[in-house]
């Protein structure tokens, strides 16, 4: 792709994911998925140079791949509880208070569709900021009530008490259409930004619950020419981002 071509939807998604880690300081950016991975490396190479990144396995690496530390799963799981981490997980279902499900669809005792299991979603959500990435925004993902609470949302954290709320925070949800957050009085989901070319109505129709939509919704910012060059030529020259998001 020519460096002069206008940003694609996937590139807006990369920028929106990268922004998730802005101002986080010296913490581990833990992206799950292709676009969040590109976003984290973009943030690390530009406006958040102190972020820690992994190679997706057991090494801490600089954005250019130079190892700078060891983070096998056991240390990673313990690091979560220390809180110096901001993870961006996937979600098979998300509800209006940010409860996330990656475990199964249907009745847990005998699911219609077994998915991954809760993985580290319970420990992540109670210990460090947890954002989400949804590459296909649809009413199947954004549901009124998730079938199995893997990642804890604001309502369930509040009901579980101070130990659950103490470090609980869901900064944002990035999708192929928009950016969502929970900046409302009751911590229900709100439309925070639209990717250029998307309307609020499109987001409403793709969301299975009533979403708070402010009168003026900003657009996701454009990537700078330097950021576009980094994305296209350095971080993701094979264009894997386009496969995850689509044109």
């Amino acid at each position, binding site marked *: 792709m020519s460096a002069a071509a206008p940003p694609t939807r996937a590139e807006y998604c990369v920028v929106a994911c990268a922004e998730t880690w802005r101002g986080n300081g010296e913490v581990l950016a833990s992206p799950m998925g292709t676009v969040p991975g590109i976003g984290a490396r973009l943030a690390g190479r530009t406006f958040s140079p102190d972020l820690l990144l992994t190679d997706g396995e057991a090494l801490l690496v600089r954005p250019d791949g130079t190892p700078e530390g060891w983070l096998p799963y056991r240390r990673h799981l313990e690091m979560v509880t220390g809180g110096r981490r901001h993870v961006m997980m996937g979600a098979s279902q998300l509800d209006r208070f940010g409860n996330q499900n990656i475990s199964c669809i249907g009745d847990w*005792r005998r699911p219609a569709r077994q998915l*991954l*299991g*809760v993985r580290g979603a319970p420990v992540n959500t*109670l*210990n460090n900021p947890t954002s989400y990435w949804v590459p296909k925004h649809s009413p199947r993902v954004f549901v009124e009530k998730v079938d199995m*609470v*893997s990642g804890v949302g604001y309502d369930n*954290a509040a009901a579980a008490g101070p130990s659950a709320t103490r470090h609980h925070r869901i900064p944002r949800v990035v999708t192929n259409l928009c950016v969502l957050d929970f900046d409302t009085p009751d911590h229900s989901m709100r439309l925070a930004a639209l990717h250029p070319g998307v309307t609020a109505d499109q987001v409403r129709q793709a969301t299975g619950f009533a979403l708070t939509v402010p009168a003026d919704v900003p657009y996701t910012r454009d990537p700078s020419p330097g950021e576009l060059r980094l994305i296209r030529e350095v971080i993701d020259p094979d264009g894997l981002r386009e496969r995850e998001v689509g044109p």
Partner: protein
Amino acid sequence: MTDKTMTPEEAVAGLRSGMTVGIGGWGSRRKPMALVRALLRTGITDLTVVSYGGPDVGLLAAAGRIRELVTAFVTLDSIPLEPHYRAAREKGAFALTELDEAMFMWGLRAAANRLPFLPVRAGIGSDVMRVNPSLRTVTSPYEDGEEFVAVPALRLDAALVHLNRADRFGNGQYLGPDPYFDDLFCEAADAAYVSCEQVVATAELTKEAPVQSLLVQRHYVTGVIETPNGAHFTSCAPDYGRDEAFQRLYAATPWPDFAARFLSGDEKTYQRAVQAWHEEQK
């Protein structure tokens, strides 16, 4: 010192139906697959399997050997959903204790340290508590008064793990980037069986690798089993990577066909059948 070397058959002869068996590795990474295959050749069943699940769980589920599974996930990594595990769960084939990844680790640590539980800040607020009604919480006795999940010890009757090297006495070594939790599995178990790519003399273990790579200590180990390519088709870095082509075959083939072609003989027969299949693909 006691020579603990044994065959895969001798190792699984130490297991019984109804046991709680921990399986090391993680997802589709350094799983003791040769030991799982040996287990499949016995009539042992009704197992409670404790595993960061991968194709070990898939094989045992497909063969109907699991009564209860304790896990945080089951995945083939490059193929996110394990098809045989999925099918078994969707049929309600066995009971599930679904824990968070960190709860699982602290459960192993509690068992290794002979504690009844360890407190974790994970689980409350999530449906892990709803689907595991026997989980209890514990309140801090200090002024913070916080409430935590008391993760019960995951004590094991037996552990099966696979490492890169070991000596005859049970000192086990990992050479890849991640030890996973294999030492904890061994320490949480009454009997631990360590398969490895190669059994070497004790002095060889530290000739080229640092002493910190000696993950498993012999006083926790019951048996040492030399099974070259014994983690196949999962990864066993740096000895070999995951056999992605074969894993795709495993995931796409109806279980009876896969079992008939690859699992009807001993380990050598399995390895030869895998080689023959790869030859056919050329």
